[in-house]
């Protein structure tokens, strides 16, 4: 526990000390401190994760604060590892990414301070088990990440995205506070552990609490229909912040859901189906809109929604296993879901960092303007490719492992002898398959439009070299991890078995032999596959070695002078698929058709708007505005009037106190 405290303090100190240094050294200072902090944090975390024991300690602080109970069990330990390690990589990357801003941006000092505050508060969220302190660190987390999002606050859209994010986070916290207040009233205690009894005895109450808290945490995690802040905030934030936010921070929402689950005895069947279905919808919705995006970071943000959905499917199937008292299903579901948390944080951070590298060199996030970058930025291209294959859930990378576990959970779910279960499970399997192929369509688009072919604009053409080594290095580690987990899933499974056991609670009955032996076979299969690939590439190289190979233009249907403007664009690549699902999109065309005999200029641009935003969010905001404008007279701008309001409030409070 002392190591844990030392780790947090070190990371926070890094932020503080960096204030004193010159701009050029800030990132370096905070990297060193958070490296040390991560080392200190991982000692107890790894120990707890593999042994499954629980460490508790109460910290005493001077009066208004009082006691802070801190509990680290293997679920917390898992999240501590993910948070500290992924944040560290993001910070190392920021050393290179932040350079162009050093001269121009005045926010550098506060940026690094808030970065360290964000990491500390996330660590707090996953360890503090007391309502009040949980809410305090939760709020610090939301606020510090808000300041990180508005790093480039001179841009109007960044500011509006930040405020949008802030509003969403506070709606989220309303639900969380509501749930906690109800728990406090029923149990009379502020400690998480004391909720167990009341949640176990009163089923209806437990379900209500779960739904309220789930809603609150789902906003943070980005489940549909509470996802709208993600595709706005992620593109606005600097890339390492997007990486940390999408890779790690939204997972605190998942942590909240899992923590509540660990306090509940057995979730009811209806609740389990609720989680499963909302997750399936999130996954499909996220990937569908990701397909339509041409802003690289927005595309990745929608993929976060998809992956949160996949994690949710794992959790849902785990809950289903619990409610039908089948520990095998529960184990497969929870271990798949929790492993996907780890996997997603790895490949999503990798992709965000790589997209940041592209942005740094080309200054555009619009993929229609990119192309051919594999020639000038080969390392970034290969790393992005690895991330793309991993996020599409394809073997031999890590995304496949967690999706396989979730598939197995869904398939084993057929032992539930119920026709509704059969239909829902089969349709979930089909949705998961569809999500996989749509992710494939989306990432072949993203990778090939950004990195392959010929440059589509002067921005892409003028790139001279790859980003610096300090930016490549963290991405390299992440790419290595995706492959490592993909090739040795039987060991990766050890990371998630103890956290999954906390959710299943009776670790005596749980039989993890099946999943381990399956993972062994998959590992062997992946190696065999790589061997086949290597053999075929070897044969191919052998056979082409002594033959002349010519370099020619692409086949242009007889036309000789193909140029970069004739390539397929991202819009056209996804057009056949999107036109099939026409009703699900609100399309905004921006077309200027070629006119006259010798047309001078013409352009075509397609923007796709979120259907939820168009049909639900915007009308709600509009109605809200009209409603609230009725009360505008209250805010008269007159000081005397405000003093009068204060007086009225005091009088009312007095009367209320007397009456009660």
């Amino acid at each position, binding site marked *: 526990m002392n190591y844990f405290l030392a780790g947090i303090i070190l990371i926070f100190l890094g932020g503080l000390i960096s204030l004193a240094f010159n701009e050029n050294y800030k990132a370096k200072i905070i990297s060193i401190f958070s490296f040390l902090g991560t080392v200190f944090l991982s000692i107890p975390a790894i120990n707890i994760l593999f042994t499954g024991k629980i460490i508790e300690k109460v910290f005493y602080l001077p009066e208004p604060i009082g006691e802070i109970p801190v509990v680290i069990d293997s679920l917390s330990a898992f999240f501590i590892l993910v948070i500290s390690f992924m944040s560290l990589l993001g910070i190392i990357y920021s050393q290179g990414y932040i350079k162009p801003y050093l001269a121009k941006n005045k926010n550098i000092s506060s940026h690094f301070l808030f970065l360290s505050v964000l990491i500390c508060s996330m660590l707090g969220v996953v360890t503090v088990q007391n309502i009040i302190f949980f809410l305090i660190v939760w709020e610090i987390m939301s606020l510090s990440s808000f300041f990180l999002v508005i790093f480039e606050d001179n841009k109007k859209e960044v500011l509006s995205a930040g405020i949008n994010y802030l509003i969403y986070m506070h709606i989220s916290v309303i639900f969380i506070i509501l749930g906690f207040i109800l728990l406090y009233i029923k149990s009379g205690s502020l400690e998480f552990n004391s909720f167990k009894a009341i949640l176990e005895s009163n089923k209806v109450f437990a379900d209500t609490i779960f739904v309220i808290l789930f809603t609150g945490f789902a906003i943070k995690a980005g489940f549909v229909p509470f996802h709208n802040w993600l595709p706005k905030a992620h593109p606005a934030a600097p890339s390492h912040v997007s990486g940390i936010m999408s890779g790690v921070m939204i997972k605190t929402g998942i942590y909240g859901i899992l923590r509540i689950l660990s306090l509940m005895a057995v979730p009811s069947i209806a609740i389990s189906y609720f989680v499963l279905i909302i997750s399936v919808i999130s996954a499909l919705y996220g990937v569908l809109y990701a397909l339509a995006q041409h802003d690289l970071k927005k595309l990745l943000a929608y993929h976060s929604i998809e992956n949160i959905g996949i994690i949710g499917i794992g959790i849902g199937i785990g809950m289903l296993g619990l409610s039908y008292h089948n520990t095998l299903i529960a184990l497969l579901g929870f271990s798949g879901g929790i492993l996907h948390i780890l996997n997603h944080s790895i490949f999503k951070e990798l992709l965000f960092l790589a997209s940041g590298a592209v942005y740094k060199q080309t200054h555009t996030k619009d993929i229609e303007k990119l192309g051919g970058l*594999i*020639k000038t930025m080969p390392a970034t291209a290969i790393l992005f490719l690895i991330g793309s294959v991993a996020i*599409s*859930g*394809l073997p031999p990378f890590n995304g*496949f492992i967690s*999706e396989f576990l979730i*598939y*197995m959970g869904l*398939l084993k779910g*057929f032992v539930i*002898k119920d*026709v509704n279960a*059969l239909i829902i*499970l*089969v*349709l979930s*399997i*089909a*949705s998961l*398959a*569809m999500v*996989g*192929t*749509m992710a*494939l*369509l989306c*990432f*072949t688009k993203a990778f*090939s*439009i950004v990195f*392959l*072919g010929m440059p589509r604009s002067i921005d892409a053409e003028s790139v001279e070299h790859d980003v610096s080594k300090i930016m490549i290095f963290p991405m390299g580690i992440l790419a290595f991890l995706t492959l490592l987990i993909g090739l040795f899933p039987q060991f990766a499974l050890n990371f998630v078995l103890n956290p999954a056991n906390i959710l299943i609670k009776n670790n005596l009955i749980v039989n993890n032999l099946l999943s381990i032996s*399956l993972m062994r*076979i998959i590992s062997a*299969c992946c190696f*065999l*596959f790589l061997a*086949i*690939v290597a053999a*075929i590439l070897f044969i*191919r190289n052998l*056979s*082409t070695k002594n*033959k002349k*190979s*010519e*370099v*020619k*233009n*692409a*086949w242009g*249907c007889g036309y000789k002078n*193909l140029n970069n403007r004739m*390539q*397929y664009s991202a819009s056209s*690549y*996804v057009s*056949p*698929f999107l036109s099939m699902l026409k009703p699900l999109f609100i399309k905004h065309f921006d077309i200027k058709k070629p006119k006259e005999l010798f047309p001078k200029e013409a352009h075509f641009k397609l923007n796709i708007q979120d259907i939820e935003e168009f049909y639900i969010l915007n009308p709600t905001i509009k109605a809200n505005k009209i409603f609230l404008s009725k009360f505008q007279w209250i805010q008269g701008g007159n000081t005397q009037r405000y003093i009068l309001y204060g007086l009225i409030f005091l009088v009312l409070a007095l009367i209320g106190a007397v009456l009660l």
Partner: protein
Amino acid sequence: MTIKLINIIILIIFPFLFVGLINKVKAFWAGRKGASILQPFYDFVRLVKKGIIVNKATSIIFQIAPAVTFASILFAGLLVPIINFKSIISFDGNFILFAYILGLGKFFSLIGAMDTGSSFEGMGASREASFSTIVEPAFFILLASVVALTGNYTFESFSAVLQRAGAYGVLIIILAVIAIFIMLLVEGCRVPIDDPNTHLELTMIHEVMVLDNSGIDLGLILYGSAMKMLIFASLIANILIPSNLSILTSLLIYSGIILLIVVIIGTIESSVARLRMSHVFEFIFVMSSLALVVLALVATKLYGN
């Protein structure tokens, strides 16, 4: 062991014969004599002997993509039962790995096509990727339904359908065969989805993706897509072959069924025109509907009164 060896030999040799026979059937319907059924093999050897032409715009991706795609198809072949219900690699959930490893191959063939920067190949890639987004879920619905019925988590679960479901089983088997046959046509890019013999780039799907490939790369691509068709044909054969046969009988029956599939494909290609591009989705949705009917049948069998 012998069965596994025979399976591997079939997997490697039959793809050439498969395409050769289709061409022979088409030649028969056209009233021609046709090329030897070994012609695809000769073509392959000829392509391997040739040098390669590399497009100026391409990168390393273009060079490795055909090999990765071929490897993925070959590996997928190891997961599918060929004769006697035995996959070479068989474990619970192997059909998930099968679909995803084919997905990896598709990923590389798509980015390989996009690497050329040619709009034709982009067009082909876009179409092929879009079609597979509908095929895959239908495939999973079909497999998951059969798994639910039999409680066997591998491809071999089809062998237990009849004894589990009786009369329903016959219906399930017929529907499953048709569904997988449609999948074969889509994945193998045959008429009515795509015409391998077309010579107009604008209407092509798979063929247009490989316009710039040459030499051994093109050879691997052609061999790979033939092998892919054989894999799906083997799936169909395994749904139909009764279990507990000796190796020789099942080999004979297997060859017979493959031959029948070849004749059907050849006949379709000689008698039907390919669909308009906008109707291809509708055709593939037939497969989804069939899979859903199988699901409904399984649900009725298991829980209907």
